[in-house]
C-alpha cells in the first residue's frame, strides 16, 4: 500500500505501545489481535524502530496482512489486517 492509501485507513482498533520497548509492542499487539474479527484492521503505535520489522514477521507467520507503516514524528503507525 502507498503512503497516501495508508493515511486514509480507518483502523478498527488501535494499540498504543509507545511507552514500551521490545518486545512490549508485539506483546501488546498479540493481546489486542484477539479482540478484532477477521478482515478488520488494527493499528499499532510504537516508538521502537525494531517493531517496524517485527510486526511484518509476526503477520507473516500468523497469516495476517501487514499493510504498511506510516512514520510520524518520534513514532510509527503500523497497520495490519487480521
Amino acid at each position: 500500500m502507498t503512503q497516501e492509501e495508508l493515511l486514509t485507513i480507518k483502523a478498527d482498533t488501535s494499540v498504543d505501545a509507545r511507552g514500551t520497548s521490545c518486545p512490549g509492542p508485539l506483546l501488546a499487539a498479540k493481546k489486542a489481535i484477539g479482540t478484532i474479527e477477521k478482515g478488520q484492521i488494527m493499528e499499532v503505535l510504537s516508538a521502537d524502530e525494531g517493531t517496524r520489522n517485527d510486526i511484518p514477521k509476526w503477520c507473516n507467520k500468523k497469516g495476517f496482512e501487514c499493510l504498511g507503516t506510516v512514520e510520524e514524528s518520534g513514532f510509527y503507525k503500523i497497520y495490519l489486517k487480521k
Partner: protein
Amino acid sequence: MQQVTETQAVDFQKQIDELKKKVSMLEGMNQDQLSIAVVSGDFDKVLAAMVISLGAAAMDMEVKLFFSFWSLAALRDPKKKAHGKNFVSKMFGIMLPKGKDKLKLSNMNMGGMGPKMIKSIMKKHGVLSLEEMFKQAGEFGIEITICEMSMDLMGIKKEELIDYPNLRFAGAVTFAGDAGESSAQLFI
C-alpha cells in the same frame, strides 16, 4: 495409455505409505518450539533469555527454558528461606545473588553500580523489568525446567524458589529431548 499392472500399483502404494510415514516423523521432529539452556546467572544474559523467549511466545512458538547452574540464582525468591542446609550450601547461599533483582552484569558491574544504571535506563525506555518479564512468561505458558543436579550442587532447595506457574524439575535428558523436538535451540 500405458497399462499399470497390479504389482506396480501395489508397489506404488507401498512407496506412498513409506513416504507418508517419513513425513509424519519429520513433522513430529521439528515443532515450532524454542528451547533455551540458560546457564549464565548474569543480569544481561538472563534478560536476553527472557526477551527472546517473550518474542518467540508472541510469535506463538512454544518456549521451554532449562535453567541450570549460575542461572538458578535468578529463580531464588528473596522472601523465602530454606532450612536444613549444610555448611557449604549455606556459604553458597550467602555468596549467590538472592533473586533476579540482585544479579550482576557480566560487564561493567562496577560493584553493583552497573545493574542500577541499566535498570534505570530500562525503566526510562519502557523495557519491562525482569520481574515483569517472568510474570508475562508465566501468562504465556512458557515452561521453566530446573536442573535438579545444579540445585544439589549450588545447595538451592525447592522451597526457596520463586512461585512460577509452569515450573518443573528434571535433568539433562529432558533438555536434550525438548531441544531435539525444537526448531530452534539456544545456549545462554
